[in-house]
């Protein structure tokens, strides 16, 4: 129900600045972007779509940061595995 899906804004409807088309891996639907404000959003932006409304603009920098943290945790894990392997060898 609280289902939210990331989609890319590929079109903003002429004359209706609260209407946009989002693309989700090739699937398109018109959504309402009125909750985000007309200036906040442009073509190429990614938004979170819920029941036909864009709820939030996806912050690419934050997304990258999260992934980096996950990679970091992953790195720590890899390091540990490596350490384990090395300790094994030694």
């Amino acid at each position: 129900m609280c289902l939210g899906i990331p989609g890319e804004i590929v079109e903003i409807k002429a004359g209706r600045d609260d209407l946009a088309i989002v693309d989700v891996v090739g699937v398109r639907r018109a959504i309402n972007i009125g909750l985000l404000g007309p200036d906040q959003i442009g073509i190429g932006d990614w938004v979170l779509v819920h029941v036909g409304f864009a709820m939030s603009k996806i912050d690419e920098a934050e997304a990258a940061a999260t992934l980096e943290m996950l990679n970091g945790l992953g790195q720590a894990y890899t390091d540990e595995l490596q350490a384990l392997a090395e300790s094994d060898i030694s």
Partner: protein
Amino acid sequence: MTTERTAGWAERAVAEAEATAERESGRLSPEQQVLQRIERARRRSPKIRESRITLAHGAGGKATHSLIEGLFVEAFRNPTLEELDDGAVFSVGSSRLAFTTDSYVVSPLFFPGGDIGDLAVNGTVNDLAVSGARPLYLSAGFILEEGFPIADLRRIATSMAAAAQRAGVQVVTGDTKVVQRGKADGCYINTAGVGVLERPVSLGTAHIRPGDAVIVSGPIGDHGVTIMLARGELDIAADLASDTAALHGLVDTLLDAAPGVRLLRDATRGGVATILNEVAQAAQLAVIVDESSVPMRPAVTGACELLGIDPLYVACEGRLVTVVDGAQAEAALAALRGHPLGDGAALIGRITADPPGMVLLRTAFGGTRVVDMLVGDPLPRIC
């Protein structure tokens, strides 16, 4: 005015469950006790609780099964019917024949990749093919709504004829009824089919063994998602087309290459998940599916994510699900992939002994979960 009351149906359900509860063995773990309770509830002969037909009864899931087993099989009871296979198999003279029927009520009638006409031919041809038969003859019963454009009917008949020709079958008998405006939805078609079993193969859930491989012949869900989007109500567009196709040639190729085929099914209403549940329950074995191996087009994934639908339950109309002797899995895959209708074939799972009657999924994320029979109706009228 009363301002509080109880829900009669819920009180009754509780009372009924209590009345039929068996004593649980004290030696079982809490988990085992619960599983035992659930198993008992599942084994109970299917009961139709509703007083009226709802759309769920036509969705291919639990309600459909309850209706078929609790009403139709109950009424018509005979060993051939009780197999509940895609086609009935019986002998006449020295021949073994397969016989099957399906009605087609898809809306819209015309959709990317096909129309109700080729669907009606391919669907019935496929039910014969997965029975191991060579499809021979079809019947065609039309129920037309007063006012239906004759040009549309001609278009449908023409595409049926083309599909029949492609499948090498003949429409040899038919019937036409017209109902008043508002008593149908343009055009409904029933086809029944007769085929002949010429191969010595024995297909059926009884032949399935642990270690067998589960293979699907191509990306799943194209048909169901295409229809859902073609209805226009969801305002969603995607570059997708129905996978409707006649599979008898693909079946031939497969059976030539892998005589150890245990079972064939076309993954229609209810999707792959429904078939696998039917298999697991009939064979009392487990089906273990590897999510990341299940072939799926990105647009199907996207539409399903957007709508919160599980693609494993979405219908195909041109995809084969087959259970094959594990030793012949590679040969079967190679054969399917060599055929134009099977080039996207993939091994998606294995049969194991435990837990009997269950379909389990190893998720792409690396987790595990149960894949159960569908409850409710995810998609309106897709065939």
